[in-house]
């Protein structure tokens, strides 16, 4: 039996009827057509489906939508303030060549958002450890690490 729940996603409230076995990833992609969040494995290993729930990174493929009533969900679509401006992490990913095929990118960026919230000035080792749940097959990660360093610098200097 479906349950009607209200999800708070990127500041908007969506009312959806879900079966209990419906994952957040399915609700985002199929019901709400917020397809920026990807699905790469379905087992929580690749991180392409990463979103923030109450500011923390989680795998949307292993999260039941029914459990998210009242929680604050942020997806890649909710990161940039508007279509003109980008979030500094997005800017850095673009400028530093951290994006190739782009399929891991939304998840990488959401993991970065979580990382920099927890640790605004991470060392390179901390950045790499912070990406433990995000696989990329194109870049070899180095330019992603560069982008995260760049974003951390911009974000912490602007908040100083």
């Amino acid at each position, binding site marked *: 039996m479906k*349950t009607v729940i209200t999800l708070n996603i990127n500041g908007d409230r969506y009312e959806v009827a879900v*079966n*209990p*076995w*419906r*994952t957040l990833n*399915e609700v985002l992609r199929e019901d709400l057509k917020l397809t920026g969040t990807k699905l790469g494995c*379905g*087992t*929580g*290993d690749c*991180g392409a489906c*990463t979103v923030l729930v109450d500011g*923390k*990174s*989680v*795998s949307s493929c*292993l*999260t*039941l939508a*029914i*459990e998210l009533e009242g929680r604050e969900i942020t997806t890649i679509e909710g990161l940039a303030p508007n279509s003109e401006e980008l979030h500094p992490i997005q800017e850095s990913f673009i400028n530093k060549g951290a994006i190739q095929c782009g399929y891991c990118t939304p998840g990488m960026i959401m*993991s970065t958002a*979580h*990382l920099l919230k927890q640790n605004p000035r991470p060392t390179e080792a901390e950045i790499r*450890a*912070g*990406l*433990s*749940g*995000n696989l990329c097959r194109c870049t070899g990660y180095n330019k992603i690490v560069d982008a995260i360093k760049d974003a951390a610098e911009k974000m912490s200097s602007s908040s100083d």
Partner: protein
Amino acid sequence: MSLPKFSYLAPDTLEEACRLLAAHQGKIKIKAGGTDLLVRMSARAFKPDYVLALGKVAGLDHITFDPRTGLRLGAMAKLADVVDHPAVREHYPMLARAAKATATVQIRNMGTVMGNICNASPSADNIPTLMVREASVIALAATGEREIPLAEFFLGPGKTALQPTEIATEIRVPVPEAGSGVSYQKISPRSKVDIAAVNVAAFLLLDGERRCRQARLCLGAVGPTPLRAPRTEDFLVGKELRPEVLEEAGELAAGEATPISDVRASKEYRRLMVAILTKRALVEAHNQALHH
């Protein structure tokens, strides 16, 4: 693959949870973080009719430390919160190390220490350190509560001493004794982010002359459950950790392991690694004990 169909039960109280569990015995799975349960369900390894989620039960995510009674981890305490908890870091640094060695950032934000224990995987990161610290699990049923020592908790891969009507609500870890030290060693040779091919925890309590007054070892991923190594432990008692003692302890521990070959390692490699990791764990535990 999508998840199989199930009915979702999310009680507000433990009493209600116990009632539901008893009512649907054999057809129900308990969900804490869900990071393991949902993976197995989507692979159709489990097809429960009911999923009993503990997320709405208040007060299950506590992490508390009392210098007289020790550490208590609620069933819903997340791995990430255990890693970051100041009391855990101060008094149980190896628990924090093991929690941090578990899976990935996202999984640690979702998964719980209790879930890792109750899945009863022989390679679980969080079991060995808790085992050598002589932790116990509180099991609650409608009929009452009991405390199960971790040493008696694991019956086989995926099998625990929990009754079908019981919910594991809390992990209790005794106060670290002065002069004791613990180490957690893990080898996953393919990647920095991987399930352990072998893991070992060691606990040592030293006497005034740096001899082992107590020794406990737990060997992971080398048997159907995480294994204590009683012969090695007995051997160590009363001894100083000289190189030849370490060597022999490593060999003894390897002899107590009963590994199999799988996608991560062969049984021969695992057995050898038990010896190596045991030695490394003993050395570190010894150092910890000296500084504690």
